[in-house]
Each structure stands twice: as structure tokens, then as C-alpha cells.
């Protein structure tokens, strides 16, 4: 993957379309989206709910397959990946943060973070060190032994963030990470994401409906409306 030419975008979509069948009706969640994400870029995807933002993220993260069009990773079509390569892509290249945190309720914060490492085949001393580091990065060392039910929403999202970056993935996909949080907590989480982006050079694609926040943080903002790319502009535009 690193052999790709430097001018080539890290992630690109070409005519990306995703349709869902809902009984007799076909719902088009994403229609003909073409988009380039450069390595190290912070891209915000704006849109109201139902505009296809999450679908876009799922497609970028290899969780879902497009009906038409393609997702290119370093120029290689994700559709040509074998099922195992796709798993490895999810495991090593992508880190996911969701609106509803999606922590495993029976595991402590630290165990949740380590879970991602387990699937990557890293555990024992190395796993603990990486998990500790990720938890320190999100500032939750004092809450590491708590279960999700004992944590506030903001704390849970920070655990989820630690889990997403524990393996220092080059790509962080954040799906409305502040959607369930009050504005003060939201700011904390967002500034953490920004810090990770800056410190680790992580490419971030963040979906949000808060265009003020998007404009403030992102290098570039794109807007989705009814599954189509509506406009594209530089941050602050």
C-alpha cells in the first residue's frame, strides 16, 4: 500500500452508490459520490440525518459493499480485496468511532480497548502497554477499570476513541462522535480527535451535522444531501 505514488489520494471514491431494498421499494442511500481524501487530511462530512453520511463511512471502512462505484485505498479497489484482506484492512488501517460508542458492556474500559488489539493478535505485555497508552491519551487513566455503565457519555466516547486509535491506524472514521453529548463534553471529545489528528498524523473522516464545529476543525468540509455530494469547500468557507 505504501508503494503508491505520493500524489495519489489515500482514500478515494468513484461514483460510489449504495442502495437498500426495503420491501418492494429501493432506497438510494448514497448516489454517485466521488471524493478524494489525502493522507493526513481532516475531512468533515456534513449532512442532516438520513443524508447517507453513515453509509459513506461504512463503505470507507469496509463494513459495507457498494451497489455501484468503488472505494479506492491507495488506488486499489476495496471490492478486489479478499474477505481476509478486508478484515485486515479493518483491523490495521481503520479505526471506528460511533455515535452510540458501542462498547462491550461486560468489559471494563481497558478491556474494551484491549479487545481491538486481541483481534489484531497483540496481547500480553505489548497489548497492555498499547492499551494504557491509548487510555492515557484520552485522559481516562483513573477510569480504566470501570465498566461502560459506570461511565458518563463523554467518558464512554473517550474509551471508544482510545479503542479506535490503540493500534494507531492511519485512518480514523468518526460517525457523529458528539451526537449524543452535550456541547461542553462534545468540545472535549472533538478537541481530542483534533489532537490525535495533529499528534499522530491520522487521516480523519468525521461525519457530523454541526457545521459550525466542522468548519472550525476540518481542513475541508463536504456536504451530503439526499445521498449526493452537494458542495465541497475549504474549511471556514
Amino acid at each position, binding site marked *: 500500500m505504501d508503494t503508491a505514488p505520493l500524489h495519489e489520494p489515500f482514500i478515494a471514491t468513484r461514483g460510489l452508490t449504495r442502495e437498500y431494498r426495503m420491501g418492494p421499494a429501493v432506497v438510494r442511500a448514497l448516489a454517485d459520490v466521488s471524493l478524494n481524501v489525502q493522507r493526513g487530511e481532516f475531512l468533515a462530512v456534513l449532512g442532516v440525518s438520513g443524508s447517507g453520511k453513515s453509509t459513506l463511512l*461504512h463503505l470507507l471502512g469496509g*463494513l459495507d459493499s457498494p451497489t455501484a462505484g468503488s472505494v479506492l485505498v491507495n488506488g486499489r479497489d476495496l471490492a478486489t480485496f479478499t*474477505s481476509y484482506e478486508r478484515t485486515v484492512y479493518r483491523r*490495521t488501517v481503520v479505526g471506528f468511532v*460511533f455515535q452510540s460508542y*458501542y462498547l462491550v458492556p461486560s468489559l471494563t474500559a481497558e478491556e474494551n480497548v484491549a*479487545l481491538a488489539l*486481541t*483481534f489484531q493478535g497483540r496481547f500480553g505485555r505489548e497489548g497492555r502497554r498499547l492499551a494504557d497508552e491509548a487510555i492515557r491519551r484520552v485522559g481516562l487513566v483513573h477510569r480504566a477499570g470501570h465498566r461502560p455503565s459506570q461511565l458518563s457519555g463523554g467518558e464512554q466516547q473517550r474509551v471508544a476513541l482510545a*479503542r479506535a486509535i490503540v493500534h494507531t491506524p492511519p485512518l480514523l472514521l468518526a460517525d457523529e462522535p458528539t451526537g449524543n453529548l452535550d456541547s461542553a463534553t462534545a468540545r472535549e471529545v472533538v478537541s481530542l480527535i483534533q489532537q490525535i489528528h495533529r499528534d499522530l498524523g491520522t487521516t480523519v473522516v468525521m461525519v457530523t451535522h454541526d457545521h459550525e464545529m466542522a468548519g472550525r476543525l476540518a481542513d475541508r468540509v463536504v456536504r451530503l444531501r439526499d445521498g449526493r455530494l452537494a458542495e465541497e469547500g475549504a474549511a471556514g468557507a
Partner: protein
Amino acid sequence: MRTWRIILLAIGSLRRTPLRVGLTALGVAIGSSALVSMVAFALGVQRQAETPFRALGLVNVIRVSPKRDKDAGRGPALDDAALQRIEALPGVEAAYPDFRVRGLKIALGDKTTTAVAIGLPRDVPLPGTAGDLLVAGEYFTPGTRPEIILGTQVARDLGLDTPQGAIGATLRLETSGLAPAEAAKTFTFERKDLAVTVVGVYDLPNLMAGKMSGAVLLPVDLMRQIPGVESGSLLDRLKLGADPTQPGYPEVTVRVRRHTDVAPVDKAIQAMGFRTRTLLSRLEDMRTFFLFMDVLLAAVGAVALLVAGLGIINTLLISVLERYQEIGICKAIGASDGDVFVLFLTEAGAIGLIGGLCGLALGRAVCWGLEAAINSYARAEGITAYLEVFAFPLWLVTATVLFSAGISVLAGVCPAVRAARTDPIRALRRE
């Protein structure tokens, strides 16, 4: 290593629903305990039935006789030369003529009794665990000393009240019979008294008691001195249709070292041109019956375990539904389909293993209780020997645990496949 980690993860997640996991494992435990106790019963009964044969070493015995005339051609003579050839076969412990005298008169002072005398070789010890049957004294000593071993019944009949007290007593054997003269053309009636020393007393377990404790054992060389013993079975020989003028013994006992030697030695002796009979072959018939019994009882137990398997399927399917979202999360953070499959299959296997081990303990406890009950009933009926109704050989223990784990893993396949195929998007979307 990575898979091992995932297995540990699966075992950890069993703790989340202890009641449900416990009940499911209990189902497996009941199933496997049914299986193990049923088979243990079948094995126990079989062992109980075979023990007497084994104890007397009868399993390792081949009886050899000359071919009858009506068989294809007349076979070679079963004489001392033939005995030597048989004794030289690999695996053979001893070969000796099967001397047996019925109604042998035994006297001690003014007390007399009659008994069956059985000839046994001096130079080889008693077969199997038969040596344990000696309650006093020793087996015959090598040499030619006139010795006798008494059954407890005979000892009592002679007024020797304790087995220990009988050792060293000198008895008089009053023998008589038709001894051959002039190369077996004519016979003369002979009487002969033999003085013998008691060297041992044997007793038989209650179950096999009866006639046998009314017998005495004599060394083969001593038996030869009893007039007519070598020709005494002339009538038997005629009855069998054999040539009465043929030299040699009507029947010879061949003892082999191990029961696995029976078949090859049997074959070799047949190849020499003799007829053979083995108890093992009759025991095989009995075993076929027991095999049927084993299979039947195992089937009943297996049905119980299969029902428990359905319980596992049910439990895990519910678990898959409950953890639908969690499966989605795991996939989103890098779990492969295979990882999820292993995760759920391990849970099934662990439930099975726990259930199997508990079932084993449960089965063992139940059998122990039943055995105690059966024995107290047996004692009330006057049977003093302890009856081991159940047998738990190591293979049964291992097989039970492996079988319950196996069934459980099998039951886990369907839920595990379902979990592995979960679409992460749909799983994540469900709130």
C-alpha cells in the same frame, strides 16, 4: 496464540449469564451422567460375569483333543511328543494331559470323603488370579513329592476345621482302576493307596462356589500313578468316536501366557492336526450379547445427551441474538468471521466440557449410591461377596467427557455460523 486469546475471551463471556449457562451445562451433565452410568452398568455386569473365568485363568486355556475319525482323516496322536511340540509354541505356558478322577476316596484317620481330583502341572503357577484363591499354604513345590491341595469343602469333610490347620496333614488316597496291560490289549483291576501331604487349601468366591470347592488338586505326575487314569477315559474316547487303540491322551490342556496368545496358539495347534476348544470363543459369544447391551444402554444415554445438545443450540442462539450488536462491534474493530465463529464455538465447547465433567461426577455418585443399595439388598439375600455392579474404566471416563464436549461443539456450529455471518452494519444499526 491469537486463537487461544479469543478462546479465553469466549470463556470469560460465559460468566455474563451464569444462570443460563449453568442450566444448560446441567442439561449436559444429566445427559452425560445418564450415558456414563448406563455404560458403566453394562461394563460392570459384563465384568461380574467374566470375573470367575478370568480368576481361574480359564480364558487363557485351550483344550486340545485328537481329531475324530469321522473328521477328515485320522489326525496325529496326542502323545507326549505332541505335548512337547505344543509346549514349544510361542506364548504357551504349559501343556499337560487333562487328568480328572471322579469319586476319588480320601481318608484322614477314620474320616473319609470323595472328591473330584484335577491334575495340574507343578512347574507353572496357578493361572490368572487363581493364586489368590489359596486361603492357606502354597501351590505345589517342584520335584516329585506327593502333595495335594484341598477345596475348603473337602477339608471340612475330613474334619480339618481351619484351612491353616489342614496344612501338613497327611491324607490317604484310596485309588483303584483298570490299568492297561500287554500294550492296552487287556486290563487288570488294580488298587493302590497313596499317601499325600496337604500343601494348600483353596476357597472360591461365593458366586462360583458349588461343586468346585468339593474338588482336590493333584500334581500331574501324581495323577499318573493312579491306576487307570491314563486309560480310564477309554469310555470317553469310545464315546467321542476315537480309536481306543490310538496312543496318547484324549484331552490336553494348553495354557497360554496372555489372552491375546489364545488365537495364534489355537491356530498353530489346529495346524498340527488337532481339535481345539477355547473358552474365549464361547466368551466371545457372551461378549456379543454384552456389546448389544452396551450399544442399547449407550444409545439411551446418548439420546439424553442429544437433548442437552438442543439445549445448547437454544442457549447460544439466544446469546447470538442478545449479543447481535456486540458481534457487529467486534467485526467493526477487526474481528474476522472466523474469530466470531471460534468465539461462539468455544462457548459451546466450554459448556459441554463443564457439563461433561459434572456429569461424570454426578454419574459416579449415582452409581456409587445404587451399588451401595444393591449390595445391602444382596447382603439381605445372603450374598456375602461385594458386587461391583458398575465399572468405570479410564476410556469410559475420557470418552464421556470428550463425547459431551464433542456433541456440544457440534451443537454450537449452527449458532456460531449464524453469528459469524452477522452483517456488521445491520448489527450496529440495531439499538
